[in-house]
């Protein structure tokens, strides 16, 4: 078990910088998920921690020991590859035993360790099969078994369940979580799937273009996105983002969307901090914070529905407001079809404001 620390890490592939000023501390026993689109540098970061990739500059510490000059073999870290990377000419037992044989562990000890890991992962029955005769989920179990068997300081996983089908992914996800809790090993997990990230992580690290965007617990990342990228990347369906104009009206502030005159009323306290910025402001509002009504109500704006996505547990309804489109989450069957007149309002408490030019979130003191 170990603490991993990255200090000012930079990585270039030729002229392309794939990791920029990476500073990150992963605590002992923590499950950290690196989330980002493909090509954002998350896998490269993970490989740099493992020692499969050198860093151009910067330092990496594992348990306070500088390892960025060391080879992967000397870092005592396990890695689960997206392609599983099982040895095709060895059976499951030999695959799991490989890291132990490589360091010359005695037969009896090795046998015990392999059997124990196989037991935990429920692959005891498969031990004498070859990888080519395994189903995807079992291959992944073997790959994880091979990583866990030597009790590494940390477990790094590069989209380990990305190649599995949806149902199996869900199953393996909870299995990985269960394993992490029972073993308490420091884990770093790379994925582009936000649901995986949200469900597994103690902390999520969101990357974009080689830059750290936000580090935080899943609910923190979801409820308090640090910038527009995080706001639009995390959450499904994506957050509504629209340029807004603020106008005073009585004791309240009117937030106008879509270049129309109609606007939503916000308590002044929530928007006070926006006055000083002077920048163009964008409003971010998640679909679940957009409420629809069938009848006119105070503060609600009349709009027309343009599209309905029935998802079973709820519907996603697109509405047209001025020249922009908003997505709202409603109970299923709330709106029967396109082109209907409904009234819309948003929950000011769940609204996010962003500086359009810098993309940073604008938050009050509260």
């Amino acid at each position, binding site marked *: 078990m170990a603490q991993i620390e990255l200090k000012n890490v930079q990585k270039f592939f030729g002229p392309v910088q794939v990791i920029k000023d990476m500073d990150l501390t992963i605590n002992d026993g923590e499950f950290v998920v690196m989330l980002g689109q493909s090509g954002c540098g998350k896998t490269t970061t993970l490989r740099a921690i493992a020692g*499969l990739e050198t860093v151009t500059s910067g330092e990496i510490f594992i348990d306070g020991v500088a390892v960025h000059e060391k*080879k992967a*073999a000397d870092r005592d870290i396990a*890695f689960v590859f997206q392609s599983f990377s099982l040895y*095709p000419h060895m059976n499951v037992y030999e695959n799991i035993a*490989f*890291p132990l*044989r490589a360091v010359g562990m005695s037969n009896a000890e090795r046998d015990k360790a392999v059997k124990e890991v196989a037991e935990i992962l429920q692959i005891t029955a498969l031990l004498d099969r070859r990888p080519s005769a395994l189903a995807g989920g079992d291959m992944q179990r073997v790959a994880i078994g*091979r990583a866990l068997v030597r009790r590494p300081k940390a477990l790094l996983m590069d989209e380990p369940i990305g190649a599995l089908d949806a149902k199996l992914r869900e199953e393996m996800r909870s299995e990985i979580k269960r394993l992490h809790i029972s073993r308490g090993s420091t884990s770093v997990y790379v994925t582009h799937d936000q649901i995986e990230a949200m469900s597994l992580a103690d902390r999520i690290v969101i990357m974009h273009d080689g830059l750290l965007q936000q580090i935080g617990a899943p609910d923190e990342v979801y409820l308090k996105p640090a910038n527009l990228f995080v706001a639009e990347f995390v959450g499904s369906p994506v957050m509504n983002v629209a340029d807004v104009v603020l106008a005073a009206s009585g004791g309240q502030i009117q937030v106008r969307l879509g270049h129309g005159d109609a606007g939503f009323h916000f308590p002044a306290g929530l928007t006070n901090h926006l006055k000083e910025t002077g920048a163009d402001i964008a409003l971010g509002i998640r679909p679940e914070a957009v409420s629809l009504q069938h009848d006119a109500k105070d503060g609600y704006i009349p709009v027309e529905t343009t599209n309905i996505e029935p998802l079973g547990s709820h519907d996603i309804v697109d509405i047209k407001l001025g020249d922009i489109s908003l997505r709202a989450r409603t109970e299923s069957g709330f709106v029967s079809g396109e082109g209907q007149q409904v009234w819309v309002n948003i929950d000011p408490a769940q609204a996010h404001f962003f500086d359009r030019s810098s993309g940073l979130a604008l938050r009050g003191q509260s």
Partner: protein
Amino acid sequence: MALSVIARLEPGSRAAKRGMSDLAIRNLFIIPTITFLIVFNIFPLLYSLGYSFTDFRASTNAPAKFVGLDNYKFLLNDEFIWRNFTITAKYVIISVTGQVIVGFGMAMLLNRDIPLKGLITTLLMLPMMLSMAVVGLFWKLLYDPSFGIINYGLGLGKFEWLADPDVALYAVALTDIWMWSPFVMLLSLAGLSAVPKHLYEAAEIDRAGSFYTFTRITLPLVAPILMIAIIFRTMEAFKTFDMAYILSSQPTTELIAIRLYKMAFLEWQTGQSSAFAYIVLIMVVAITNIYVKYLNKVKER
């Protein structure tokens, strides 16, 4: 079924305009090959099988007399023939082992990013593009005791490479290694580059040392293609004739192919040499089969 596999002719093509059917085209390609095979391979094979049971001599007009298995009995009981077999076995083992070590070693060296890799590979392949007889002729010059460059380079004075009965076979094998290592290298290189890179990364993560990685990952994964190279080289080494015949005429370098040549065309023992050729054929097929069995076992995974 067979017809449906063959692509239909383009309706507007020249062949179609000339009134040729798919079947006609197929026959046009296949019949010459089949005829050639029958006339030059199958027929002599069967005809010599017949001769192997007679005392026929191609140099006389005397009619062939059926002698049953006498030729086979005689050959298998002849200790000189067994000496030829021993020499050949020794030669095959030395030469093929040498080629695998040198060829695989070169492939390992080339299986990385080095400048001018393509050019180096091509240059290394030159020996196997030469004619066997030519290689024999100029290696005879290289080995020459008085002006050969090998003795000059190694400072061995007047060392008799080819005239020394104890060394001559090794000298011939060395020439064969020089000539055919590139072949093993070529196949090994194909095998090595087919090993997925992520397996090496996994091995590195698993803390396997370079030797352990080589024996447990690289070698088993290259084994099937290396085995094919070994099959080819063993068969070829078994029937080595021209190069060895040109290089040395020592009794210690008398490989079965040379003995066979002498028996058939110097002594004109046509019947007996046919029987000899069949014994050799059966041996080569048997040895190849052992390899193929192993190859199939390796390929199963």
